[in-house]
Every structure is written in C-alpha cells, then in structure tokens.
C-alpha cells in the first residue's frame, strides 16, 4: 500500500527565512503520526503545505495520492482538519454543526441524514442534538469536532493541538477516539505539547529549526537519546534550538 503522505526535500522560504528546510518523510495508512517541535520550528508551515493551503517553495509532496502543487483542491476533499482554535460554531446546535461541516466536506444530504444519528450515538450525544455547541463542555466540543472532521471518511485527519486545555480524563477519552479512527484505517497526523501523548503515537517526528531532528517510534527515540520519557527526548533535541518562535 502506498504511503498516505510522502514528502521529499519539502521546503518553504519566506524571503531569506527558511521556515521549513528539506523535509523528507512518509506516513503510512492507519498510522498515528505525532508531529512535534519547538515553538517556531516550522510545524504550522509544514502542516499548511500538506493541507494544500500553502504552496511550497521547493521539493515534492503528495497527500492522499495528490500533488500539493497541482492538486490542492483534491487534497482538501480527502483530508479532515481540526484544531483547538478553530473547531465548531458555538451558535449552531450539535446537529446543525454536523450538517454544516459534512456539507462543506462534500457529503450528500442523504449521506448526512444517515451519518448524523450514527455520529450522535457514537458520542452519546443523542440528548444534546438540539443543544447549542456553545453550551457544551469543552471536552465534548473537542470530541464532537473530531468526529465531525472524520465524518466524510477522509484518508487522513490533521489534528492541531486538539487536547490543549482539556481536563485529564477527557484528554484520554479523546485519544481513544483517535485510536479507534486509526484502527478503521484513518491516518492521524497530530501535534501536541503534552509529551505523554507523544507516547500514544506509532511514530513521532520532532522538528527543530525547520528540519526534522528525529523521527522514529517513541521506544526507539527514548533508546537513542537515553531518555526515560518523550519529554527528556524532546528537551535533549530542542534545547539548543536557535529559533524561539511560535
């Protein structure tokens, strides 16, 4: 099976500044891929290129079989995206949000009618179908946002700090949703600042100053860098970063 994401020397330059410098990596189908990095390392820029939102300066990349230069719109149909900052509309109800996003992702009315009750049941939100999303606790919002982002059965879902500010129990429930999605074959590309969550990924890459400083399974990374936890590994790699950005 071909990888879901392939990049080769993927780079983005803003003026003299090399935000992303020759990234080469692959992500396999059904993999949970942790995309970590120091602030300012270039994670957001790299993610925007992979989502078809930003044209690279040089190098190659394909996502879900489509080229990031020439087929960004096909890519957008094959991916889901969710972040802490941009997720759902607070003044729409739970089922209105599902209908709205599923429509945006190109699902037909019939598909949406079929999918909505399934989704509500999976999340045990049947009682809240007509509740405004603004009135849901943050943890539920995030779980709903995730389910909505994969309702159209994308090949890959991009999660940008999905658990930021979420309580410890809900954070773990959220990761179980991620895990179930991956089991069904959805590829998960996730960023986080919680280092315990890095352990839940099949493989983790750590970006420092625009390049991938390390990429392997959490177990191998800990062995290679002599750390007890992923936090130790991250600290060892990012400590000497020259960029202190965002």
């Amino acid at each position, binding site marked *: 099976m071909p990888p879901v994401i392939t990049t080769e020397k993927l780079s983005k330059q803003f003026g003299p500044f090399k935000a992303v410098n020759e990234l080469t990596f692959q992500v396999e189908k059904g993999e949970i891929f942790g995309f970590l*990095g*120091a*602030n*300012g390392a270039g994670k957001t820029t790299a993610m925007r290129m992979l989502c078809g939102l930003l044209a690279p300066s040089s190098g190659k990349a394909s996502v879900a079989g489509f080229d990031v230069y020439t087929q960004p719109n096909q890519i957008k149909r094959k991916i889901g995206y969710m972040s802490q900052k941009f997720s759902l509309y607070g003044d729409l109800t739970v089922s209105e949000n599902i209908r709205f996003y599923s429509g945006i992702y190109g699902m037909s009315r019939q598909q949406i009618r079929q999918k909505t009750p399934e989704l509500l049941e999976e999340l045990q939100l049947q009682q809240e179908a007509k509740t405004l999303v603004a009135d849901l*606790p*943050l*943890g539920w919002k995030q779980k709903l946002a995730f389910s909505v982002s994969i309702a159209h059965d994308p090949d890959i879902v991009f999660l940008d*700090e999905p658990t*930021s*500010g*979420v*309580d*410890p*129990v*809900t954070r*773990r429930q959220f*990761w*179980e949703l991620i*895990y179930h999605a991956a089991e069904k074959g959805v590829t998960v590309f996730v960023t986080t*600042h*919680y*280092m*315990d969550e890095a*352990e*839940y990924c099949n493989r983790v890459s750590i970006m420092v100053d625009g390049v991938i400083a390390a990429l392997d399974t*959490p*177990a191998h990374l800990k062995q290679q860098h002599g750390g007890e*936890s*992923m*936090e130790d590994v*991250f*600290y060892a790699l*990012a*400590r000497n*970063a020259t*960029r*202190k*950005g*965002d």
Partner: protein
Amino acid sequence: MITLDKIEKTFNKGTVTALKDISFSVEKAELFGLIGPDGAGKTTLFRILTTLLLADEGTATVNDFDVVKDYKKIRSCVGYMPGKFSLYQDLTIEENLNFFATVFGTTIKANYDLIKDIYQQIEPFKDRRAGQLSGGMKQKLGLCCALIHKPVVLFLDEPTTGVDVVSRREFWEMLKKLKGQGITILVSTPYMDEANLCDRIALLQKGQVLSIDTPAKIIQSYPDKLFAITSSDIFKSLQDTRTYPGIASVFTFGDTLHATFTGSSEKGILAFLHDKGHPDASLETITPGIEDCFIHLLKN
C-alpha cells in the same frame, strides 16, 4: 498576601456558575499554582483579584487591600499577565516596556535589576514591534511589562499554554528567581506536571476547589494503591484491562497504564492479560503524580 473568603461568581444572570465558594490564602513570597482545565474558573479568579471583575458574593484581599474598596491601591502594586497577549502590537519591545513603566510612574532604569535577566534575552530585538514577535518572546516581554513597576504580587494566567517543553522549563526557572526576590506569585496552568514546581496548589474543576495543599501532601492523600501496567500495545491492553473483574480504575499514562484494583485483585491481572494476548505485560507499584490525584478527585 492574598486572601479569598467564600468567593462566588456567576454569569448569564446566574445560569452559569464560574466560581463556587472559593476560600484560600497565599503567603508572602509563595509560588501558588491554580491547576485546572479550561472552564475551571482560573481566569475569573484572576480578574476578581486584579479588580477587573466584581464577585457576586464573598470578599478578597490582595496585599491587605480589599478588592472592591481599595481597588486603586491594588492596581498599583500588582503585576498581571493575562492569558491572552495584551500588549500593544504596534509598539516595539522597548516602547511597550516604556509605556508600562510610565503608566505606573516609574522608569525602566529604576527597576532594571528586577527584569534584567529576562529582558536581556529579548533586548537584541528591542526595536521590533510586539506584533511581529514569536510566542516565546511575547511571553518574556509580557512578563517584563508585568514586572516593571516592581509589584509585590504577580498574577500570571496560563503563561505556558501552547509553549514548548524547553521554553516552559526556562519560564519556571524565571519564576523561581522572582520568588527568591520576595515576590508573591499566583500562576495558573493546565499542565499538571507544572504543579510540582509550585509551593502549594489548588486543583480546580468547574469553579470548585477539589483540593488545596502542597504537591507532596496532595500526593500523600491519594487513597488507593496505584499500579503501572506496561505492555507493548497500550490501547489494546487498556481495553482488555477494563474487562478484568477486579479493576477499579485504569487510565493511559504515556507508555504505561495506571490502574487501581478492588481488594488485592491486582494479583490476578498479569495472568489475565497474558491470556488476552499480552505476554509481555508487567506490573509494578508506583507513587501517584498530581495528574493521578486530579483524575481521582474528578471521579468523586
């Protein structure tokens, strides 16, 4: 230095409770942490203590001044770094710092000693506008601006949220130094691992205090015997452990599961997991962390 007595706050005409019966105090030169997720009421508490919001019920003082009657005196003796970056984006680093010094009737020079260590890290960029700064630099500038009038109490609302591990560690080093200079610090964070860096902490959830004590004492008061289960397939072993008859609770913690059992039924778990296809599963007793305690308190 800070006291709160039965503070209550609701929003939307009483329909949303932000803070419920909050009472605690913070001593001079103490580094006190408010630990809790979004929606716990951390920011509301900061806004009441910095006199930007009135509580519905209860009283509070900062530096012996009442937050309602003496609000002007409080404003001149505290530093506040809100969770949302709130410096002037169109002013440079130096202009922002100068502005805040002037507002408080002082100069950068007069209090330079206090901010020196932090300011030196961003000084090379002092002519850059605040809006163009990176996250880590904004955080440092925000701290400098909150310190420039030599406050006796420092309020920091989630200064490390969204910040990487390296910058977070650096930031807590700075806080330790400030505490050493006699400044009282109230700091909030959603990261449970930062709780251990505080002298005392309050664990907050949905406007209520779950526990207030030193991190060590909160950990001591964890009532159950806690075990770590290690196996190569975390999520599969999580699901299987849940079906074990003697299980009381089980949660993922990095590359292990943390579990508690009823009675002494931990004795049978390994055989059970081996049968379920986890031949490499192992079990050990562990000391809980703050996050274990928080999860335990959430359940009750």
